[in-house]
């Protein structure tokens, strides 16, 4: 596929993309505008050979503000796939584990990936399918940060059971392929997509629920592009619970009188790429005793969590993350004297990245005391205590 898109020709060189880019603030040499310019003068070879193309966090802050509506993340994505074909690869984070796991999942062996769900009411066949995603892998990989991303999935099951739904969880599920797609591994992506669609079809599910925004947009847009119309519906968890908010409101309660101060961090995939801004906020407001504050950079202006697709984590990523943590603690007017103030996100990767950054903050920084919690864990905590193990 030729990279130059007709759409690029509409670029008016206003530079809003570079001005909006969180990466460009830290790397002078990174500029979405100059990437587009290079492509315009037919220099794909320059772009694909340059490391720069892997530094983009694909957060879409550029494209949402672009007056010519150029989809810069998609263009970057296409350049990456060309780069990979030409033998240029990104620097993987976490020893490349999260790029190898999906490739291993393409082999014919059955994973044991639902053992954790035995305490909840789940099924092998049924109308609703809960797509767990990478959470089990994240939980074992990020023990050193003292976090358990699998608690997000536990919380989802608690909430689904609470509203009377017994979802299917499956051992046949594989990685959604989001990271393979965004690091230019199209072939791996398509194979993963086929495996997942087949696994879900066999479960007889009509509705697939996602707690990870990446999985959601990958199914909703990229699977449809690669495989055509899907034999089931996809819905993001916050939207799903929104439809049942009256029931959920009756279940939400609070012990004690103390107010909880929270602020919501919009993940780029859910917000800018999908336009879901309101349902997580409405769900948070439904919890009694929650004082929700809005960060200055929120909704379509939200700051990225610093890195994506498990590549190119750098000092730039850390600077972006520190910036976000400080913004959250300023917004909630924390003074560092006591614990309190919860930064809530709905993406497991934002959750991991922000936790990692907080662990790296010096002790005397106010943001060090900030709590970071996933929205579903927060909600489930007010429905019933979930067990950490």
């Amino acid at each position, binding site marked *: 596929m030729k990279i130059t898109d007709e759409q690029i020709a509409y670029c008016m060189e206003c530079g809003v993309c570079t001005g909006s880019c969180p990466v460009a603030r830290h790397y002078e040499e990174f500029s979405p505008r100059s990437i587009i310019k290079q492509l315009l003068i037919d220099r794909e070879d320059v772009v694909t050979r340059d490391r720069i193309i892997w530094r983009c966090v694909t957060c879409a802050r550029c494209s949402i503000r672009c007056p010519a509506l150029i989809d810069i993340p998609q263009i970057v994505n296409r350049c990456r796939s060309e780069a990979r074909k030409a033998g240029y690869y990104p620097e*993987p984070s*976490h*020893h*490349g*584990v999260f790029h*190898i*796991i999906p*490739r*291993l999942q393409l082999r014919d062996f059955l994973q044991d990936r639902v053992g954790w769900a035995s305490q909840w009411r789940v099924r092998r066949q049924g109308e609703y399918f809960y797509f767990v995603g990478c959470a089990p892998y994240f939980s074992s*990989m990020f023990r050193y940060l003292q976090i358990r991303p699998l608690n997000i999935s536990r919380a989802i099951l608690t909430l689904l059971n609470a509203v009377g739904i017994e979802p299917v969880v499956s051992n046949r599920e594989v990685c959604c392929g989001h990271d393979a797609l965004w690091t230019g591994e199209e072939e791996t992506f398509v194979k993963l997509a086929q495996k997942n669609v087949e696994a879900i079809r066999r479960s007889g599910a009509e509705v697939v629920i996602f707690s990870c925004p990446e999985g959601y947009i990958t199914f909703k847009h990229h699977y449809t592009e690669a495989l055509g119309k899907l034999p089931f519906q996809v819905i993001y968890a916050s939207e799903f619970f929104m439809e049942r908010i009256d029931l959920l409101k009756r279940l939400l309660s609070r012990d004690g009188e103390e107010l909880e101060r929270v602020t919501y961090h919009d993940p780029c995939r859910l917000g800018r790429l999908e336009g879901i801004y309101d349902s997580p906020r409405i769900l948070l407001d439904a919890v009694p005793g929650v004082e929700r504050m809005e960060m200055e950079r929120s909704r379509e202006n939200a700051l990225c969590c610093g890195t994506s697709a498990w590549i190119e984590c750098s000092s730039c990523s850390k600077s972006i993350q520190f910036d976000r943590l400080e913004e959250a603690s300023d917004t909630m007017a924390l003074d560092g004297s006591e614990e309190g103030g919860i930064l809530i996100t709905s993406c497991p990767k934002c959750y991991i990245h922000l936790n990692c950054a907080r662990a790296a903050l010096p002790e005397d920084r106010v943001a060090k005391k900030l709590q970071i919690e996933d929205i579903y864990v927060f909600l489930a905590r007010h429905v019933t205590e979930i067990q950490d193990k």
Partner: protein
Amino acid sequence: MSLQREPLIVAFVCNWCAYAGADLAGVSRMQYPPNVRLIRLMCSGRVNEGFILKAFEQGASGVLVSG
């Protein structure tokens, strides 16, 4: 060939203990199965999750970390 049916084991071994042990076995002319492939490291602390998964990805049936 029955050999090809044998599982391929990749062993990451520490220069200062496990590798020395394997070396001693060799010097003493003790036999060990050829389907174990040793990879010598200066310390088994060098091993990370990526090494292990990469070995599986490239066809290993088992990975031994020894040190």
